[in-house]
């Protein structure tokens, strides 16, 4: 009987997500804000609260994070990461400082304390590589000359996340300075080790994983990612980072094949992940922080525009391209919710979850829309000039 209800509930949720996804596709927006809203509706205090499937969904959400990060890692190879780090360090640092500041300052002004400030810094910092990549390809911006600037900022952010998430995990666990420092040192060592192994011995790992049979390949890649993610979690390095590093270690045609195989499973569990975050958030708690979230969204939109303009200018891009680079960086999505999710799970301030949810809702919806509208605007300005 229990299983029957579980299936009915899960089926209902996933089907609802499918319908929402179809709507998002038709309107031309990212489905992420809709998934979050669905989560709000199904959660406590929502219009259609779930009774039994929350446990299952919570495990599904964890899987979603791991698969999201694994496929993100598969997109890059170690060479690209190292080159990107070397050539774009300055732009990347400007990005980090400008965009971590709004969240951190906001948390401090609200008196949430330094731990929440570190979490909120991450919430406002990271651009959603998933949404931005989709915007770039949907709008035909991949050939644009400012696009490499945007992409390398995204790479830089993703790498920063590999260092930030372990730090956040340590801080949230309330570890003392010494044990915190040890955790961070372990994280740094792990990340550098994996990069080194991927650069030097990537072939060996690939030889082990490679298989002409797609079923075997899928099982090996997912198994390896889960195993490393679990070990990373054990070392307090964060499971997500473990999965990301596995993705980076695999490259070339193999990574291409694995990504294609993983895409459908990732899409399923990533949707579950966004729903789960919505589930944990009481819709009633969103309204009081909605104004604040909107303000934070506006401020961090401006800081991302400034970041894009700065980095594009350094790359010798003209004025229009600088605006596009900034606009492309606006969407927030998966990472921000991952970070807020970690903070909520560790018992951060009760308003942090709702604030992050509202913030991501706004920017995940508005970012792609702004990108769509900016080109006609640029053209109109050019005509008038």
């Amino acid at each position, binding site marked *: 009987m229990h299983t029957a209800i579980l299936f009915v509930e899960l089926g209902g949720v996933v089907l609802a997500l499918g319908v929402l996804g179809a709507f998002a596709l038709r309107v031309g927006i990212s489905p992420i804000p809709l998934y979050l809203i669905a989560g709000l509706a199904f959660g406590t205090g929502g219009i259609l609260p779930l009774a039994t499937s929350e446990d299952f969904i919570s495990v599904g959400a964890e899987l979603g994070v791991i698969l999201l990060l694994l496929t993100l890692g598969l997109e890059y190879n170690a060479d*690209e990461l190292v080159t990107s780090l070397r050539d774009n360090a300055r732009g990347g640092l400007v990005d980090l400082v400008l965009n971590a500041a709004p969240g951190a300052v906001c948390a401090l002004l609200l008196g949430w304390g330094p731990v929440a400030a570190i979490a909120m810094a991450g919430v406002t910092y990271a651009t959603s590589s998933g949404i931005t990549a989709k915007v770039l390809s949907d709008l035909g911006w991949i*050939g*644009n000359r400012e696009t490499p600037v945007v992409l390398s900022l*995204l*790479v830089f952010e993703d790498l920063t996340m590999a260092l930030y998430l372990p730090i956040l995990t340590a801080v949230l666990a309330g570890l003392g300075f010494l044990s915190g420092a040890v955790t961070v040192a372990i994280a740094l060592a792990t990340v550098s080790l994996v990069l080194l192994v991927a650069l030097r011995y990537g072939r060996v790992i690939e030889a082990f994983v490679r298989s002409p049979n797609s079923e075997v390949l899928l099982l090996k890649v997912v198994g390896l990612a889960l195993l490393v993610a679990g070990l990373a979690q054990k070392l307090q390095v964060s499971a997500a980072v473990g999965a990301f590093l596995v993705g980076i270690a695999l490259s070339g045609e193999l990574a291409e094949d694995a990504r294609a195989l993983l895409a459908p499973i990732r899409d399923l569990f990533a949707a579950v992940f966004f729903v789960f975050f919505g589930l944990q958030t009481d819709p009633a708690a969103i309204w009081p922080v909605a104004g604040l979230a909107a303000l934070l969204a506006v401020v961090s939109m401006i800081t991302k525009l400034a970041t894009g303009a700065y980095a594009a200018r350094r790359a010798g891009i003209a004025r229009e391209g600088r605006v*596009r680079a900034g606009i492309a960086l606006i969407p927030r999505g998966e990472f921000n919710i991952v970070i807020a999710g970690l903070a909520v799970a560790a018992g951060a301030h009760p308003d942090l979850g709702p604030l992050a949810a509202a913030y991501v809702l706004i920017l995940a919806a508005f970012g792609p829309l702004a990108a769509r509208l900016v080109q006609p605007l640029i053209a109109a300005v050019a005509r008038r000039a």
Partner: protein
Amino acid sequence: MEVEQTALPGIGLRHEFVTQAGRRIGVVSHRTGRRDLIVYDRLDPDRACEAIKLNDEESDALAELLGAPRIVQRLNALHREVEGLVSEQLPIVPGTPYAGRPMGDARVRTRTGTSIVAVVRAGQVIASPGPEFVLAVGDVVVVVGSSEGTEAVAEIMANG
């Protein structure tokens, strides 16, 4: 001319250059094998105003169309480097006695000691054509030999 190469992390590579007339064009090579031919906006030089998706076959066809005359030019340059060896491109014009006849009829090698190394037809290079190859008006015959030899071939092609 300088071709600029930029890495597109997660996507592939982009090559671009500015033509003599001031237009910027580029090619995005996706890791999946897809190619995008990019034409940049005249007024907004960083914007791709046209991005034409090409699959493997289409990119090959385009490369061949654009590259064929270049191959002949390179061949010429190569032969210019070898002293005493000249290569010449001789167009088959209307009124040529050998238009519509197999190339062997001209007995070029026996009469001049010069070789026909290629024929360019409709942008395509036909390398080392045999004596049975039928010449047509509009073909360009590429010959390699001494300068007297190639001149003699030009004379044969024009007047038989």
